[in-house]
């Protein structure tokens, strides 16, 4: 396969070389005093204009080109594009941090997000390609017949994809605001422009070829910093091979540091603080007014004595910032209490599987680990924006091959993420902990300023203890270049990579949403006689509307967006996976069965998420319906129940309804031969 390069491969090789030359040039310019902010702008401008050039070159007004890139994407490149499509801002920025915080338990994400591709390869991709239409609702509509199932599929696809696309645009805002100091809202709209240049003119065709370009940037950006860090620490630039040794070292440091008297004291202080908050919450609303009175009294005392004015002003500000009503006080104090409780717990050992004090705790961790893997794998194999990619290859066997390439390209990142986490932990344990706070390295202060790292000397000994340090997971990838003392050009590269990851995923998602609306709803249901020209006009205008809508939502900085992404997996998994798999492998599955299975599965997931996660929904007038999780399964793994219920419902209802006479000829068509077999 590598012997002779095709024309496309040569183009992308030139492209990669010019990107590397660009980085080299910036590195030289930095040596000669180019300010960091300009380096950030240069990366932003260079990468987005590259994408724009590809996007404009791939413009098209052909329906098949617009929806499935003319089914002419070779397996290798489809794999690369799927890689970029798949790896989102969360994978690029968040995953290494999650692994840092949760150790072995976080590996569920690594397994789930790769293992799902085995399901795609074995159960879905070849059959979708042989079916050869445009969307996932198309497939369900053709297999089961009727518009109802198409509408349910469209609704589920939009629900899962929209949440996801908002998270990507949010990620773009975060990256641009941190690295080129644009205002967050402006960053969001820069991201919107970056997305539109790729998808507006050329649809799937343009998205595919920009995604390939984005993959190249994101993988270079992800691996470079950790390779340099690995070389600095171990003398070997291949982090994946050598971090076992570093992990052992981390284990030794953990043994030495976790239970020093100072650590135990700090954890005790946090526990006391948590108790204090608990008490205050119990005594609401009295405790709030009491606190305010005390503060006022102190201010008055100070005004009567000769205290400095600025101390009084500070206290008055503190009084202004106090919670206004008991509701707000409860919310704020609860979050403070939970953070104190977190810090009061002994830290986990990085390599320990299913950590817990007793056998029951360990069992809960074990169940959740496996449940999360289940939901992520099934969700991976059910997210429409990934599955649609397998419509774009020229042949069925290329569709199969392209799953292989997809997984290979995705694996490069997921195999690196745990190394990131281990190297970062090694740096923290060996260079931060037990160091006087005044002498901490510069990057800690720099990231503390933006609020991603916080340090609180609760026992006032002037020395940092593990529990006194708290880090936002995003900081691991973003700060690694500084941790390893690399020039700013590497930080700029990381920002460009994160941007590529977010933009490429957003492109794919946006296209899925607009295709669902314009193709499945408008063309298939509302106006089957619409001309191809009209269909494309509708598609493009919807793309614009949905993109602006998503950016507007992202600009509001919705707080729960990251957990909502995890829920999207459960919802997509329980809506699509059972209906697709049984639809392909079981002749007896009927329309009524599939429809009820999709509804039961996705509604059960949503119900579980709502009842476990929330206590009340004010705008529906429901309150006090919080429930204990079933079998200790967290709400992020709601799909465990949704998917199983979906399968069960389809089987039971199908057996009670009349078999579909057309199913077997349809299935003959997608299982064995091509068009002739299909009626």
């Amino acid at each position, binding site marked *: 396969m590598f012997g002779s390069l095709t024309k496309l491969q040569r183009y992308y090789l030139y492209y990669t070389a010019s990107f590397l030359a660009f980085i080299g040039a910036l590195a030289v310019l930095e040596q000669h005093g180019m300010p960091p902010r300009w380096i950030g702008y240069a990366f932003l401008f260079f990468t987005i204009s590259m994408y724009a050039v590809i996007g404009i070159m791939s413009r098209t007004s052909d329906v098949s080109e617009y929806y499935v890139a003319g089914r002419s994407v070779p397996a290798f490149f489809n794999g690369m594009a799927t890689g970029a499509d798949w790896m989102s801002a969360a994978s690029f920025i968040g995953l290494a941090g999650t692994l840092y915080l949760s150790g072995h338990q976080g590996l569920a994400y690594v397994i789930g997000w790769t293992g799902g591709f085995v399901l795609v*390869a*074995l159960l879905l991709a070849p059959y979708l390609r042989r079916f050869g239409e445009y969307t996932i609702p198309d497939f369900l509509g053709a297999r089961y017949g009727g518009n109802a199932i198409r509408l349910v599929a469209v609704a589920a696809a939009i629900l899962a994809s929209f949440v996801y696309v908002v998270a990507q645009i949010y990620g773009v805002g975060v990256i641009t605001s941190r690295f080129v100091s644009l205002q967050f809202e402006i960053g969001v709209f820069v991201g919107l422009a970056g997305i539109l240049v790729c998808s507006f003119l050329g649809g799937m065709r343009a998205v595919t070829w920009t995604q390939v370009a984005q993959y190249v940037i994101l993988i270079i950006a992800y691996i470079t910093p950790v390779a340099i860090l690995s070389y600095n620490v171990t003398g070997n630039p291949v982090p994946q091979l050598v971090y076992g040794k570093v992990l052992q070292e981390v284990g030794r440091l953990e043994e030495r540091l976790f239970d020093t008297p100072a650590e135990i004291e700090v954890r005790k202080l946090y526990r006391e603080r948590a108790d204090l908050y608990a008490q205050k919450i119990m005594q609401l609303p009295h405790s709030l007014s009491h606190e305010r009175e005390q503060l006022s009294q102190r201010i008055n005392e100070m005004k009567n004595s000769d205290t400095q004015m600025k101390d009084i002003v500070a206290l008055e500000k503190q009084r202004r910032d106090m919670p206004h009503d008991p509701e707000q006080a409860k919310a704020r104090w609860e979050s403070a209490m939970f953070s104190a409780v977190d810090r009061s717990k002994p830290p986990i050992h990085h*390599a320990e*599987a299913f950590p817990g004090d007793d056998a029951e705790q360990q069992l809960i961790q074990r169940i959740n680990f496996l449940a999360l*893997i289940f939901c992520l794998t099934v969700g991976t194999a059910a997210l429409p924006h990934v599955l649609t990619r397998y419509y774009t290859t020229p042949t*069925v066997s290329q569709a199969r091959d392209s799953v292989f390439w997809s997984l290979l390209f995705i694996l490069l990142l997921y195999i690196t993420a745990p190394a990131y986490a281990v190297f970062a932990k090694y740096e923290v344990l060996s260079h931060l902990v037990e160091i006087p706070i005044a002498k901490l390295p510069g990057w800690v202060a720099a990231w503390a300023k933006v609020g991603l790292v916080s340090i609180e000397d609760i026992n006032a000994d002037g020395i940092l203890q593990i529990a006194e340090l708290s880090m936002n997971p995003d900081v691991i990838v973003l700060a690694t270049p500084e941790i390893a003392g690399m020039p700013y050009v590497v930080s700029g590269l990381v920002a460009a990579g994160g941007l590529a990851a977010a933009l490429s995923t957003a492109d794919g998602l946006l296209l899925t949403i607009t295709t669902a609306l314009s193709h499945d709803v408008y063309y298939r249901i509302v106006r089957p006689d619409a001309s191809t020209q009209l269909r494309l006009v509708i598609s493009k205008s919807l793309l614009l509307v949905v993109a602006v809508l998503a950016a507007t939502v992202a600009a509001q900085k919705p707080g729960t967006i990251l957990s909502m992404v995890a829920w999207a997996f459960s919802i997509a998994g329980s809506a699509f996976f059972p209906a697709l798999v049984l639809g392909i492998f079981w002749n007896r599955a009927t329309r009524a069965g599939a429809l009820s299975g999709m509804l039961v599965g996705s509604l059960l997931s949503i119900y579980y998420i709502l009842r476990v996660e929330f206590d009340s929904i004010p705008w529906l007038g429901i309150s006090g319906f919080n429930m204990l999780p079933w079998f200790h399964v967290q709400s992020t793994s709601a799909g465990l129940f949704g998917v199983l219920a979906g399968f069960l419902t389809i089987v039971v209802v199908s057996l009670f309804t009349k078999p579909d006479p057309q199913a077997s000829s349809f299935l003959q068509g997608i*299982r064995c031969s091509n068009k002739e077999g299909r009626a």
Partner: protein
Amino acid sequence: MKPSSDAYWRQTKRLTLTLLVLWIVLTFVMNWFAREFNDFTFLDFPLGFYMDAQGLLLIYLAIIWYYNRRMRQLDAKYGIEDK
């Protein structure tokens, strides 16, 4: 249904099922015992950690590679069209 495509589908199903069971055993059954696996060391890693961080991913890739290879052979044997 023609007899040859019947056999093709039977063999495809058997291959799919075998690999799927292998996948389930590795992903869910083996991981149930990750704590116990961690008592062994492999390439300086605790074995359970290694499997979850690298080993399983490589096995997944191998499963897909093997499936594609076998399916290509089956396609050729039964003359299944590829378009």
